[in-house]
């Protein structure tokens, strides 16, 4: 067992689970999507990205790419949130909420891809 691999897999899976936790629920209901969950998902996703940077294998490159996509989607979701609440002053209308949640849905797909790749790599190594 390799501690580095454990930490690596932990963050990748945690990024997915937190992302899923935020995403699940009615798409336009602000009550079912908490800001802390989005924040946690974003922070963990960034940490997972940093862990992937510097891996020179082909798999590492693909993992980095999916992780960057997830970061991008989550950052955009957080920016929409901040914009609608403080800049435009519309508040979390059902329309705004569904844009935020659908952005995080995109990040969820990217995170799922990451985990699938991780599983594929683990299975193919067989050690």
């Amino acid at each position, binding site marked *: 067992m390799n501690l580095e691999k454990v930490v690596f897999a932990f963050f990748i899976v945690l990024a997915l689970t937190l992302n899923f936790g935020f995403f699940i629920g009615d798409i336009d209901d602000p009550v079912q999507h908490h800001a802390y969950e989005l924040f946690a998902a974003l*922070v963990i996703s960034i940490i997972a990205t*940093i862990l992937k*940077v*510097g891996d020179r294998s082909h798999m590492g490159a693909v993992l980095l790419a999916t992780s960057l996509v997830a970061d991008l989607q989550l950052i955009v979701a957080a920016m929409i*949130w901040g914009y609608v609440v403080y800049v435009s002053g519309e508040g979390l209308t059902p329309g705004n909420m569904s844009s935020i949640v659908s952005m995080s849905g995109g990040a969820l797909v990217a995170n799922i891809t990451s985990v699938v790749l991780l599983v594929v790599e683990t299975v193919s190594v067989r050690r």
Partner: protein
Amino acid sequence: MFNEVIFLIFRRMRVPLIILVLSYAISIVGFTLIPGQDDQGNPWHMDFFHAFYFVSFMGSTIGFGEIPYPFTDAQRYWTIFTIYLTVIAWLYGIGTLISLIQEPAFRRAITHARFVHSVRRLREPFFLVCGYGDTGEHLVRVMVDRHHQAVVVDIDPQRIDHLEISQLPMDVPGLAADAADPTILDDAGLRHPACKGVVALTNDDSANLHIALAGRLLAPDERIIVRAESREAVANLHSFGIHDVINPYDSFAEWLAMAIHSPSLYLIHDWMIGLYRRPLTDLLQPPKGLWIVCGYGRFGKAVYENLRREGVEVVVVDAFPDRNRVPEGTIVGRGTEAKTLQEAGIGQAVGIVAGTNDDADNLSIILTARELKPEIFTVARQNRSRNGALFDSVLSPERGGRHGLLDLVMQPAEMMAQKVVALMMSPMLVRFLAHARQQDNEWANVLVSRIIDVTGEEEHPITWRIKITPEGAPALYEMLSEGRQVLLDDLEHDPRYREKRLHVVPLMIERPGEGDLILPEMDEPLRLGDRILFAGLPEAHGSMALLVHNYSALEYVITGIERPDGVVWRWVDAWRNRKGRERAGT
């Protein structure tokens, strides 16, 4: 390669970056959890937007104050904690980055990346020179003087520094790395399309062997020139098909033996592959008779064997007879004292070779010998190029010295470099010289006088090669393809005035499938695919290049008829000829 540097940065920066992200996350979450008060005194919780804003300017110590509302004490308590947390995280991150930049491994990675980049950008043909000692330095300087690009790899960083500050007129990329490593050779351009060959000049036979092997396997079309000291290494190189092997000690000894055996031949060599031009008439004549060789290391051994092969009687003087396994009759001593030289029989000797590996000893031997016997022929081995001024000063005045005590300086590094340059630039010339070595002094005398006839006594001959191929000599190729006969003699006329002969001497014709013709006759008919080696003056080279490229010029020197150039004039000419024939017919 640049990627590698980026990867190195990110790998090392992982921990600091994660710590930074975590400290920000903890600070932000803390601010959203701690209750505050708004301006009306109502309980208020900071949200992520304001928390991120506050932590961002606090963490970078810009400090805009407590916004949007003045903080409660609980919030200030948390602020104190987060200030130290984020500042330390930043310091750690920046400190790691700076130490990373200063780290030797990182700097090496950067210089390596720069080197690879500059090699990849090379467009003109280049040679890869492995080993930048005295020989490598001579070689690179000569190559650059003749506008040939070189790339240098040496294991010693000091020598690469030396290359960088030596202010060559061309930019020569250099890398401090082990050339025996094939990946390094690859980075240095071994498989670069413009790479013409590899020269392995390190002072380690095994490293040279590795370089040669990598060259043979990875780039089979390239020329490989290797320095090898031991007989085993030479045999090993031959076994995998590398024949351009140079032994530094043997090449020195061969030269000396050649100078004694046939001064004219030595002169021919010196003209044609010498790195530094000497006056043409400067014919050295080392006498035949008893020679004294001081120093019986690898060097002295090679001299001894070569002189014996020429039938010269040799007495050896050596300070360490046990270690060096000296021949019988050896005089023990360094040769710097008069007593030793007298024991060696300097009274009967005609020449002395100071061949120890110490330059001071060699000079001292020469001075002592001349004191004992002023007319003795003196040859000194110069080990280090930095001692050049000392050796030059004891040469005779007409050879650029002052004291006139020394007849011949032999610098192994220079000779190696000279041989490598010849092999690189003109393998055909090297073959010609090898043929010439088989001939006697009479033959060489004739050749020398023929060359002096065409060049005069002041100027130096250069050598060049004409290839009868569509690229090398298009006009000549076309004419021969038409089935017309062209003699070697035809190429030796001035294309401007055909009665005048060009100042050239044809040295050799290389004929595919038939071998080499040495000093071919004037009426030798040329054939497609021939390669002809000429010696002569640079002006003659220019005229000959015009001749083989220009059909009209060639036609003119062969037939005396000036064929017009250009479509219109050719048409006019053809019309005139037709008219002329019609008139003759009527």
